[in-house]
């Protein structure tokens, strides 16, 4: 459903991402990982259609990304980014309702749209602050409202730029669980996530980026090896087996004296 062929994007002479080849199928949960500035967000924004690649081709659901109008794109994919700054007194519910924008065609929201917005808020436990002013919400609360907004958008492809940022562990797990149920319903999720262990627990596939290049693609087990991670992050890693049988990855720190 998402195909990238030799995709490259540059600002002035510097390639931010280059030669990316990727094929993402329906029902897959992908994680883009890599150090700061590796090109994760840029790649997400290229797939969303917000940026146009100078090189290569992007196809969404079988059609070139250029063949979609902004509104058509908004019906098939949604994008979650860091907390947007809002300077006007919108209620959280109104912000979520904005997710229905691409489906309305200029008409007024129907009771059904309100219902979808309320349900989305419940799904991420944001319904308790539905009536609060969005600018007064904390970072974590606002993140959940934003997530509810893109759920209300009902896309087939979710692009999430650091969705677990600002969130406490409980809500991090909750949101990744939500991603899993989205994927199980036949939709796809691509998330840029820094927390390697969380990523490993949930992702079907991982794309590891460094300096705009794809350095590894595969399942978390094959990509998140201490050797691979060390070459990407310039930091030694070790893998630990927990009593429950899971593998945790952690930076290898000099042992205390």
């Amino acid at each position, binding site marked *: 459903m998402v195909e990238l062929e030799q995709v490259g994007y540059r600002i002035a002479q510097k390639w931010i991402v280059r030669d990316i080849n990727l094929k993402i199928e329906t029902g897959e949960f992908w994680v883009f990982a890599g150090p700061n500035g590796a090109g994760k967000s840029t790649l997400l*924004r290229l797939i*969303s259609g*917000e940026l146009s690649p100078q090189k290569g081709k992007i196809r969404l659901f079988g059609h070139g990304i250029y063949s979609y*109008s*902004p*509104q*058509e*794109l*908004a*019906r098939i*994919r*949604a*994008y979650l*980014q860091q907390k*947007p*700054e*809002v*300077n*006007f*007194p*919108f*209620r959280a519910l*109104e*912000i979520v309702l*904005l*997710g229905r*924008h*691409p489906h*309305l065609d*200029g008409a007024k929201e129907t009771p059904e749209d309100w219902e979808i917005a309320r349900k989305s808020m419940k799904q991420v436990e944001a319904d308790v602050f539905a009536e609060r*002013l969005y*600018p*007064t919400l904390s970072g974590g609360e606002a993140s959940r409202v934003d997530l509810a907004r893109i759920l209300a*958008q009902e896309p087939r492809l979710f692009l999430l730029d650091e969705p677990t940022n600002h969130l406490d562990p409980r809500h991090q797990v909750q949101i990744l669980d939500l991603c899993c149920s989205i994927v199980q319903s036949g939709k796809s999720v691509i998330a840029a996530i820094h927390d390697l262990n969380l990523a490993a627990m949930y992702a079907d596939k991982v794309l590891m980026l460094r300096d705009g290049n794809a350095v590894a693609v595969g399942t978390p087990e094959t990509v998140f090896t201490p050797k691979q991670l060390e070459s990407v992050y310039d930091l030694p890693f070790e893998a630990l087996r927990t009593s429950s049988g899971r593998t945790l990855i952690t930076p290898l720190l000099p042992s205390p004296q």
Partner: protein
Amino acid sequence: MQNRTNILLILAGLLPISLCIAAGVGAYQILPWRIPRVLLFHEDGFEVLIYVRFPRVILSAIVGAVLAISGATLQGIFRNPLADPGLIGVTAGAGLGAALWIVLVGSGFLGIWGVPIAAFTGGILVTIGVWKIAQTRESVPTVTLLLAGIALNSFAGAGIGLMTFLADEEQLRSLTFWLLGGFGGATWRAIAVTFPVALIGAVVLFRLARALNAMTLGESEAYHLGVSTESLKRWAVFGVALSVGAAVSAAGGIGFVGLIVPHLLRLLGGADHRYVLPGSAIGGAILLVSADLFARTVAIPAELPVGVVTALLGGPFFLWLLLRFKREVVYG
């Protein structure tokens, strides 16, 4: 949501009342409830109403409405509650056009139409200049739009200053008078020219309300929600230039209306532009009609420039709002 409908209905009810009071009050008093009789039966005061009061009251309502809608729109585009309709250069450009005309051409050519035409042209040209300067290859970023607006605003301000310096006594007087704004010269003919242009601009802006809501989240979020942000900005600047250009040409520079009215509406009923834009239109009309009523009656037979009144009343009112609703004002 019901609340918003009620606010709009109340405002819509207040508008005709304020129009009638303003039309009735003056050196020649006509009680507001007698106005229908006077009009129907040509009683005493018919001429005053038809030829003096109504043109003035209606023109000030039109100007107030478009200034407030334009302010609300630009606040939405720039995502900043402090944006003013003059931000994209149209007001300063109109001032420069008027100043150049008054000082360099004089009133001989084109008669009473000279200054308004020069002002409108100046406003549109400077706005186009701001737009062209802000344009990059594929987009018009709001930040550069803002900076280009500030740059050309100060440039036009300098031009007006230079004209003030070059002007003789009489030119200086008419220039100052124009810059401060007023409705003393309101005629039906002025309305006939201003109204259609202002209306086109206002209709364009009303249609942007929903996209402006999405824009609140930022330009890229709006894009991800399916808004064509470049076309949104283009239509917004087009609508504001047209309607404010027409308003300023007819009445001179009148400040504070475009800033304060949208604020007030947001405090009353929230930030949805589908409510803020029509509410601002009616609220702006009521405010400017009242300000003009005050301007021409406070020191009869002398008349204060209405721009002075809006600033004089607007300033403290704004301060009061700020102190009363400190937190809400920050977000609206």
